[in-house]
């Protein structure tokens, strides 16, 4: 685990770069985290991040399929927004843990 300062805020990250405490998240943190992976976040990205944060707060397990059924974006659209690992990247920028749907 490492502690770094992003956008003036001190945040704790796992070795893979996920926030360990979702409450340390804000929009600026998301923007900066996304930059480190080469993403520039717009409104459509943030709609997905809000959905993920809500679902996470309710204790739901997240899957690409579930985001695809959310009405916010379909699965194809999700891949376009977060190419190369839609749930991996979106979860990281949303400040929630790495998805563990796979066992």
């Amino acid at each position, binding site marked *: 685990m490492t502690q770094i300062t992003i956008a003036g805020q001190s945040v704790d990250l796992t070795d893979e770069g996920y926030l360990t405490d979702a409450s340390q998240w804000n929009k600026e943190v998301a923007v900066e985290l996304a930059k480190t992976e080469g993403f520039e976040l717009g409104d459509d990205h943030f709609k997905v991040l809000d959905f993920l944060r809500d679902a996470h707060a309710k204790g739901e397990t997240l899957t690409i399929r579930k985001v695809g059924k959310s009405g916010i974006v379909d*699965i194809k659209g999700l891949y376009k927004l977060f190419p190369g690992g839609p749930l991996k990247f979106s979860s990281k920028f949303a400040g929630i843990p790495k998805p563990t*749907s796979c066992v």
Partner: protein
Amino acid sequence: MKDILILGAGTAGTMMANKLRNTLEYDEWRITIVDQYKTHYYQPGFLFIPFGIYNKQDVIKPKSNFIPPGVKLIYSEIDKIEGENNKVYLQEGRVLNYDFLIIATGTQTCPEETPGLKDKLWYKDIFDFYTIEGSIALQKHLKDWKGGKLVMCISELPYKCPVAPIEFVCLAEAYFAKKGMRDKVDITYVTPMPGAFTKPVATKMLSELLTEKNIKVIPDFYLEKIDNDNKKLISYDELEIDFDLLTIVPVNMGSEMIERSGMGDDLNFVPTNKHTLQSDQFENIFVIGDAANIPTSKAGSVAHFASEILFDNLMSAIEGRPLLAKFDGHANCYIETGYGKGALIDFNYDTEPLPGTFPLPGIGPFGLLKNTKINHYGKVIFRWIYWHILLKGKEMPIEADMTMAGKKRVTV
């Protein structure tokens, strides 16, 4: 007279019926179990059918052989559960009341979920081996297949028995080698996961094994649809993979009955407390086996370990005591790797599969994360254990809780 009702007489439901009938008083508790089918399938055996190692008669027995006297067995499709009123509706309008309900309706394959899957190539060049029909059709097809690109694809997570597709490609490799046509077959393993398996240490061992066998792995591939005309798999991010023969694990979903009851998540799995196995929605409903959404493997061994915890908690619930038994997600899976060898993994919610020996520390006889002959015999013996010990709910010489004894803590 009070009622315990069990939905589903597969691996988990049958085990629970036996455990409960052995303990509960006949004059106080009525136990009823419902299933739509009369035949019990030994599903782990489906893996061996395509290669002619097992045939249909090796994997089927009447369900009624395993339901003890004193348990009422009803054959009917279940329509829905009405949790608020403690009622279950069967297909022909029959209604069953319960004091406690156990959901054990498992998971099923849903090829309709993937566009182009159940289309003109279905059971011609595309097969599953998660159903008796699929594995038998594939056996016929392989007998005179001339070779080409064999692709094994996993459509969606989670799916039952996460190691079965790895076993399938290993057995296929050995099968073609034995037929003297290995050089004519190109084998590719396609998965939506980031590697051959999810947990790092096991992924490393299994990836090395696949590389050694010249089986290619394509990770992070999330299947959208199948192009029947050009024989291609197409992912959501528009990557394409060609195949001549496709073996697939279709999307796995819980029973539609769960959806009709309004009790499931987006894949019809029932939200369940991962430690107590109580449903999140109703205090007197418990969930066991593949039907639950708990974050561990969907496997018969998991259902077996969970059955001991569920039994304890159900006894507590009956007596109005708190549910103290906690399931740790324990899974124990033999992995057939071909040429009479096998590997073994043992893990739970918190501990990934690690190397070592099992069940006796330092002795074994089974080697964890090792490819050995004795592990293969473990798998062979499993079928006997399944019919004679597991289903009957008898004690096994393995603890429900996973143990670190015999395991080595290593990292990649």
